[in-house]
């Protein structure tokens, strides 16, 4: 996401939109003892017919829901270990 002194511009699957045109939601994902995952989903909240048509085309082409930008953070809480067969 680009930060500006005025309205922030967000890159999405249908082009660049102003931040206020988007509903942004942080969505915790299935995680476990070793990993923690969080996603940020952006949905268009306006009524511009051109943009709505682009979203419709995007959804039809990809089969994906009305999320035009999705960021993911995977935090590896614990990595992988090789265990010596006979510890010391």
């Amino acid at each position, binding site marked *: 996401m680009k930060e500006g002194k005025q309205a922030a511009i967000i*890159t*999405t699957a249908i082009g660049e939109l102003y931040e206020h045109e988007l509903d942004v939601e942080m969505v915790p994902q299935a*995680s476990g003892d070793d990993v923690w995952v969080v996603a940020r989903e952006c949905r268009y909240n306006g009524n511009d017919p051109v943009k709505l048509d682009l979203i419709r085309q995007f959804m039809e082409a990809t089969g*994906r829901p009305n999320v035009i930008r999705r960021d*993911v953070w*995977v935090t*590896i809480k*614990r990595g992988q270990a090789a265990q*010596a067969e006979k510890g010391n």
Partner: protein
Amino acid sequence: MANSAGICTSFKQDILNGLHAFGASVIRGATTKDAFKMALYLTTASISPATTAYSATNEVSSANYTAGGVAVTNATAPTTTGTTAFWTPSASVAWTTVTFTTDCAFLYNDTSAGKNAVASFTFSSQTVTAGNFTLTMPVNDSSNALIRIA
């Protein structure tokens, strides 16, 4: 002080630094550390601890994603605490403005001719849409580091 049996802790650290070769090894051109990369794979891939080397088969593809993945920042040398040797990349691994679905990251040695495998990491299937994908590294200690020889 009694004698005791076990793998030497210094040996575990030496393994991470490539100082031992019980089998046929490679001619190293320099004493500098190797370069490592992290690649991402589709949910249909079969990456596992049995994987021996990097392969582009079933690797994700997207604008702004280059086959082979991205370089891992390696500013912190392997070290030991107690009887465990460990190493963790010194920065997160990230891709910007990408679109793909993945559930696996694969760490490998990009300097080695065979692109030898190091480790695989899995997580719940995630779709990134025109967004950023960031792998944040664990605390670099004997309990949590990305690579540990315990």
